[in-house]
């Protein structure tokens, strides 16, 4: 079973954590034991579920936005070289702008709804997609493009038949990085932008619980975030096998 090594490792880590929390003399308000987190998790399913639904929506929409924008900018840069010199420095710079500086402005523009949070997630997650896709598009076999030209392919057809599929595995690698980062990006988005209403997502929940010394519940929310990140990552890995089967297919299995 392929999940067995991961399960064994998690079990070992949980055991060590449990021992340390019970016998290591660390404050439960600083690090609750796994069994305490599990109890809290079971006792707060309603609250956690409602917050999870909000965060999951943010993550999925935000990632969608970042994949589309990262990919679109990469294609634009590839098709028109001067754009590379114009767009790359600001794109790199955008990764260094602290969200805390931008968040109030985003809220000022778009209010307390989901949109400013999506912008924060997209801002954090588009970059790996952009970089890997640009490199993937640049690494296309020039001779394949030349061949397509002899078959009278238009610029668009050369892109569609050669460059796009050639860049797809690299773009998907970038997407996997983006997905792994997406959940923490949602946390940052929720923690940095104000929300109105009883539920603000798991990130907001963690911030509130931490300041109210409800540490086990904050940890329970963090566990849900971790599981969600893992689920997203493997969903994308599965999608990759469907979208770019030629990269994973073993050789020699002739029909």
């Amino acid at each position, binding site marked *: 079973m392929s999940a067995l090594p991961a399960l064994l490792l998690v079990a070992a880590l949980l055991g060590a954590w449990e021992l340390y929390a019970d016998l290591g003399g660390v404050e439960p308000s600083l690090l609750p034991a796994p069994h305490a987190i599990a109890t809290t998790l079971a006792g707060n399913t309603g609250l956690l579920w409602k917050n999870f639904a909000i965060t999951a929506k943010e993550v999925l929409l935000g990632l969608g936005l970042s994949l589309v924008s990262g990919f679109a900018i990469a294609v634009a840069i590839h098709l028109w070289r001067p754009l590379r010199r114009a767009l790359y420095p600001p794109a790199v710079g955008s990764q260094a702008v602290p969200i805390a500086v931008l968040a109030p402005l985003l809220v000022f523009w778009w209010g307390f709804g989901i949109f400013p949070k999506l912008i924060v997630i997209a801002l954090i997650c588009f970059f790996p997609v952009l970089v890997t896709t640009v490199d993937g598009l640049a690494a296309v*076999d020039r*001779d*394949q493009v*030349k*061949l*397509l*030209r*002899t*078959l*009278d*392919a238009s610029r668009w*057809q050369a892109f569609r*038949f*050669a460059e796009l*599929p*050639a860049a*797809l595995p690299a773009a998907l690698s970038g997407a996997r990085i983006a997905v792994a980062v997406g959940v923490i990006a949602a946390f940052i988005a929720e923690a940095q932008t104000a929300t109105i209403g009883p539920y603000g997502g798991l990130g907001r929940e963690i911030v509130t619980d931490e300041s109210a010394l409800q540490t086990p519940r904050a940890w329970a929310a963090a566990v849900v975030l971790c599981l969600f990140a893992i689920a997203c990552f493997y969903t994308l890995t599965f999608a990759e096998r469907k979208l*770019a089967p*030629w990269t994973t*297919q073993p*050789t*020699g*299995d*002739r*029909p």
Partner: protein
Amino acid sequence: MAHRKRFPGADPLNLWGNARGGSDVSVSVSAVSRTYQDRGAVHALARVSLRAARGELVAVVGPSGCGKTTLLELICGLQAPDVGTVRSAPAALMPQRDLLLPWLSALENAALALRIARRPRAQARACAAALFAELGLAGFEDARPHELSGGMRQRVAFLRTLLSEKPVLCLDEPFGALDAITRAEMQSWLARALAREPRTVVLVTHDVEEAVLLADRLVVLCARPGRVIAEIEVALPRPRARTDARVVAMREQALIALGLGDRA
């Protein structure tokens, strides 16, 4: 400059037909020179002239570095000459590396030109599928290129070139990467295919025997810079056997032109 217009009005199933009317000369390269400035002024071709009549198979033989690939790219319109003129009916290139697209099946690779010509997907696939059995590729329609043997990949690449429906085929060492046995099979296969449905073919090869077996005429080039040093008519009946005394003699003649004759 070579013409780059799409060949008009081709019947999708009459893939081999070459009764197109017009001039009897399909390819005319006149006193062409080509120098690559970006690679330290490499003189690829110096005053090279070459003509191929409609339906003729011209083999271009020569050592590495004689500008054979450059010559084909000029005919296909991928490059322009520095000096001289290149006129050609629309030409399709079969490159030295098969360059099959790994994300497409064998059938889709073969039908690529039809898809580029915006034929409906089903029609393009049907056109290619009709020729798969003839080329010994039946059953491999949905295989991906990496699942095919070297000979099969070359056949798919040849089919892709053929289905471009261009009257001139430029074949760049099509069998150079194959083992000797597969190569011999592919040579007789190509001879049969062209005997039944002739096209104008410019075949680049460094294999003199292959040239004599397949071609109507040999154009022998020397290297650095590429120049024509001999033209040999191969007026022998087909099919030709490599053991035929006339084939052997002609091969010897070409080798002597290249300075490689056996002086036993």
